[in-house]
């Protein structure tokens, strides 16, 4: 770890100003990712701005019926919030599929969005990694890449975004509210994270100086038909190899609206809204779901160790959509799949 200066921000304006003023500064929320990376000497901010005292710890209902989750609300608090459990059970389930109770108690909503990839090479400063050190190369290509991307990767980076929570937020088409030196703006969830392209050093579209203040969720029709299905190397406390957030709005056995977001397969929670739209009006059956899976994975490409993710993702999509359709969402403490 490198020495740094520590400032405890007392209000949002102060935090944004301090962050914007120093390109080497980082905000610290739960610390479960940033402290981890600092200890591995992957991140070495010169200044830490502790935002934990900012008043961003509320979950509020907005007049239009949407829910606004403050950036500092812990992952546990979101998952167990009664309103979230009732209206966005998919989100609660995805959060509970991730990390451990201890980590979820510390981890925040904002931090979860901004957590970095778990690529082995990114975590190991003695290896080439374009994300950590632009231009140095990508050691994961041709290396140990069991956990890497099958969709949307580039020749510069094949990392995945490791969050479970974000997969649900992608499916639910959340909005990210950010505050920066130029004021406040909304970022649609699909535009928040980005694909690696030529600049894998950027995980997302946040500009330096901007702080996530909240995540907003609009009303939805998915509470009855949803499921979060996570496949991993052990039954708990492991990142997803593949995860699926499935949400359906069904009327008379027909799909009114279908959402599928994938985790563990791309540099961002993977969603293809055009593809989803093609299935509106079709029967909510396994056959349809299999077609959805094929469609979503059409452009998938393996890297060797992770080739299995392509068939795995397809099967997982079918299963998660079936669970959603039947109204039997996966329960994260139940290890038998439904």
């Amino acid at each position, binding site marked *: 770890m490198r020495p740094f200066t520590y400032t405890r921000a007392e209000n949002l304006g102060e935090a944004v100003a301090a962050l914007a003023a120093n390109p080497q500064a980082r905000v610290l929320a739960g610390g479960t990712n940033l402290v981890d990376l600092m200890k591995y000497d992957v991140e070495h901010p010169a200044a830490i701005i502790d935002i934990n005292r900012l008043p961003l710890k509320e979950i509020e209902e907005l007049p239009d019926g949407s829910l606004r989750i403050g950036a500092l609300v812990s992952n546990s608090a979101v998952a167990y919030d009664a309103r979230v459990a009732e209206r966005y059970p998919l989100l609660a389930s995805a959060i509970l599929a991730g990390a451990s109770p201890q980590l979820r108690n510390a981890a925040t909503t904002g931090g979860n969005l901004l957590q970095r990839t778990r690529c082995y090479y990114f975590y190991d400063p003695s290896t080439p990694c374009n994300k950590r050190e632009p231009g140095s190369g990508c050691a994961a290509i041709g290396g140990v890449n069991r956990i890497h991307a099958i969709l949307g990767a580039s020749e510069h980076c094949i990392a995945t975004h490791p969050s479970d929570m974000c997969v649900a937020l992608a499916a639910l088409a959340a909005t990210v509210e950010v505050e920066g030196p130029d004021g406040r703006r909304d970022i649609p969830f699909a535009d928040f994270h980005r694909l690696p392209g030529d600049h894998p050093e950027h995980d997302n579209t946040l500009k330096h100086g901007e702080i996530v203040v909240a995540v907003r969720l609009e009303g939805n029709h998915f509470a009855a038909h949803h499921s979060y299905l996570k496949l991993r190397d*052990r039954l708990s406390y*492991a990142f997803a190899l593949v995860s699926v957030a499935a949400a359906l709005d069904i009327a008379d056995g027909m799909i009114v609206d279908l959402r599928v977001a994938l985790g563990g397969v791309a540099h961002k929670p993977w969603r293809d809204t055009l593809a989803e739209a093609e299935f509106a009006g079709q029967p909510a059956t396994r056959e349809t779901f299999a077609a959805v899976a094929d469609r979503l994975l059409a452009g998938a490409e393996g890297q060797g160790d992770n080739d*299995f993710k392509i068939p*795995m993702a397809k099967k997982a999509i*079918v299963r998660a959509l079936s669970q959603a359709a039947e109204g039997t969402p996966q329960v994260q403490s139940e290890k038998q799949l439904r």
Partner: protein
Amino acid sequence: MQNEKNIIGFPLPRIDGPLKVTGTAPYAAEYDEPGMLVGHAFYATIASGRITSIDTSAAENFPGVVKVYTHQNRPATASSDDAWKDEVALPGHPFRPLENDRILYDGQPIALVIAESFEAARDAADLIRVDYEAEEPHTDIEVEQAKSYPPPVPRKEAFLPSDPRGDADGAYAAAPHKISAEYVQAGEHHNPMELFGTTVIRAEDGSLTVYDKTQGSQNSQGYVCGIFGLKPETVRVINAYVGGAFGSGLRPKHQLFFAVMASLDLKRSVKVEMSRREMFYLTWRPPTVQRMLVAADANGRLMSIRHHAVQTTSLYEDYQENVVNWSGLAYKCDNVTLSYELAKMTVSTPGDMRAPGAATGFLALESAIDELSYEVGMDPLEFRIANFVDYDQNDDLQLTSKALDLCYRQGAERFGWSKRSPLPASMRDGQDLVGWGVATGVWEATLSPAEAKVRLFPDGSITVAAAASDIGTGTYTILAQIAAQGLGQTADRVSVLIGDSSLAKTAVEGGSWTAASSGSAVQAGCFEIRKTLLSLAQKLDSSPLAGASVEDLAIRDNRLVLDRNDQVGLSIADILGSQGMSSVEGHGKVAPDEEQAKKFVSYTHSAIFTEVKIDAELGVPRVTRVVIAVAAGTIINPKTARSQVLGGVVMGLGMALHEESMIDHRSGRIMNHNLAEYHVPAHADVQDIEVIFVEEEDDKASPIGVKGLGEIGIVAVGAAVANAIYHATGTRHRHFPITIDKIMEGLPN
């Protein structure tokens, strides 16, 4: 008053328990002293080559840093390999930290930062810059096995493959049923929860008290004295509590060397603790390739076994384990050929990990036997029972006992094996495919030389002292029970002092021999005490015990009495008082019985039954039930004994399903060097595990009838799970671990 809590066989809660659950049991890196210096190692990032330059200036200038050591400025140490060899060293050249500019494996420690705080040492180490001249790494066992060789110097005679018997090739060719298969297994890391750490407290006279994470305090002491030319009386090594080891603490580790080196050089107290990442650059279970050819006749009698194993070793030492000999003794078979070779790779020397050799060998043997049972068309359990053997065919020796038949029977009954449907992929539970598998496990029951000093005081309190270690095995508790039994006391009157090199000589804790060895030494010490007391008692005028012999005696209510009539006797206080003695000591010693070894050999046995449920579509595996029946002679404490077996099984589940040190063969680096990506089993992975200890009397395995339990729990668990997966899916997996992707690909249609 005798009560059941004294005696051997009672499930006494661990006597060190209250300290452990309250955080008051101190581990090696938890000793402190004002002004203690802290060290942090820096390691190489190539697997093979040389250091061309190493720049430590930024680290040296970092606030709080006292000194940075590299190969260029380290203090002189012993020059001969012999001085560097610890009690359990291997053939070859022991690794010497900071010896020179050579890099032998990725992660090799190449510098040590000593600072005034942990944070300063850790953070300064990040500033060290090194240039290398790299050479090509070689880390893929499936490639390097082409250059395998039989180890020129055996680690132990017993590890040499047994001589061939009969005509394995001919019998194989002639047999109607046969299996020929290759089993490949990834490297694994022990990952005890406690990080390797050493605290050296330096006294004013320069003598050192060394708190070390080790399985043998005297081994560490000898090592340190050998390397640094110290007198044994100036170095005391303590390992009172050891946060797990599983074999990784058998040999001294570099943090011990570093802490002592810096302490001697700087004349200060020093602590060095490894990082979790560093623990992936040490002692590990080697990647192994095994080839099995097994054949049976039409009735399911084994006709031929050929077992060939190639294991990974380092460039500088020839690590070896007994992988193949199990195949010559687990079942009756007259035609057997066994062979064992090593392949050198640019990795750190592998080391013993829980049931070394057996955990690996049985993975292949018990998979192949299972495959053959299906080939013959017999129930896998019936097949094993049909090939039962009651002597050691490798060496033509008798067994001290073998209640494996009871294990099969009781285990099968408890598990409900008779309800098994024979065909693969024929059992279901909703979405899940269900599979039941069985396997046999064997581990050697050995006695190693051990001593213990037992002291009895007139008030009935007892102390037991030995350099033995408790690495979670329950040593404290069982030694207390044995002493209590031997001296007619309750266990709460016994203080056990172990984990200290200044105490009675004991070999390193490993191979499951501590209970048998140190336990027998304590028992012998108790016997000595009774003998001494009798001779003292007989010196008294008109002693009621005048005509008694030591065999007739017991101690009850603090009195030395006749066993058959405890009215006759004398109080211990009176006996000791008459001689002006304040206590009496018995020095117990045990050693293997050479004469007996010419006729007998001793093994612990197990039968493991597993149920796996596998999602029929996605391949998610769950081990929903395990029943393991163990025959291990006398069980001193069923509570701690059960825990040992449970622990072995859990580690076996990891070995079967997800533990794997993943190497990037381009760089020779283990990439998942952390506990997030190296998946040891978590709570959610472990469901019902039932342990049965079958009755087994054995008066030869050790004087107290104990065979040891540290290893048997893991042996063949991997195969039992693989066999269950085969039964569930109809696909035989021969590459371990059997991760979810492999299972998914092997699902029926």
